[in-house]
């Protein structure tokens, strides 16, 4: 097989991988849309009684993590492995801090439990499903970081990095809507 054919083969595989990932993300987004619609139907013009400052802080953490993930991907695309590793590590740390903020703090200080009516059900279901995605994203990023450390990615071939980055940004996009729905929309119950 000529080198040209190998390159063409990789490009075709890459195109299929991208399509597959986006189809997965679209199907996954239906879950989050369903949760958001549930929030609108059950709570209407009200919102759960939550700490808005904490909500803002965890949102900013996730925003920063997306920024560093983008840098990590750009650096890998240009073959700068140390910068890729550094930025991915920061992304992972911010993801863990986000989880700590939501699950470790917000879940503990919320004045209601999962079984305390609609606001409890909505809040814990929305943040729980999202936190699970953040957790899987952190695990995925750790695998990518470790593979990067072992030199498995190059500027020419780094689909794993791109996929992890797209997944991570997807989790950020979901939170953009959940943040508004849980912390900003309507008056507290």
């Amino acid at each position, binding site marked *: 097989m000529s080198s040209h054919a190998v390159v*063409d083969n*990789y*490009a*075709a595989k*890459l*195109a299929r991988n*991208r*399509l597959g990932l*986006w189809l997965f993300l679209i199907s996954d987004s239906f879950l989050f849309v369903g949760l958001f619609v549930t929030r609108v139907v059950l709570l209407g*013009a009200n*919102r759960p009684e939550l700490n*808005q400052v904490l909500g*803002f802080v965890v*949102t*900013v953490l996730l*925003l*920063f993590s*997306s*920024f560093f*993930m*983008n*840098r990590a991907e*750009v*650096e890998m*695309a*240009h073959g*700068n492995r140390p910068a890729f590793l550094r930025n991915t590590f920061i992304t992972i740390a911010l993801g863990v801090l986000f989880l700590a903020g939501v699950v470790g703090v917000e879940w503990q200080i919320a004045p209601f439990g999962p079984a305390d009516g609609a606001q409890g059900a909505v809040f814990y279901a929305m943040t729980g499903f999202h936190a699970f995605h953040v957790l899987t994203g952190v695990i995925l990023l750790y695998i990518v970081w470790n593979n990067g450390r072992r030199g498995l990615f190059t*500027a*020419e*071939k*780094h*689909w794993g990095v*791109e996929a992890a*980055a*797209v997944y991570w*940004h*997807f989790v*950020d*996009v979901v939170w*953009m*809507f959940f*943040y*508004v*729905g849980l*912390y*900003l*929309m*309507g*008056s*507290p119950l």
Partner: protein
Amino acid sequence: MEVSLTMADNKDQVAGSRRAELGAGVWVFLMLGVLTFGEFIVGVIAPPWGSALLLVAAFKAFFVIVYYMHVGRLFATDKEGH
């Protein structure tokens, strides 16, 4: 001489492309930061306007999908792969 000049040009181009991509990431991040802070302020002082913030969230999501998730690559030709 000509060959080394071409290599230097190529190196400059690569460095320029990296700088441009990182720069775009910074601008998108700054815009998202300003909009998120604006959302927070509106959500705190004017909760009835909270629903309108969904439009701001959609605007933010658009920029993340285009500039961070690179949705355009989905429709790119094989020349634009890595």
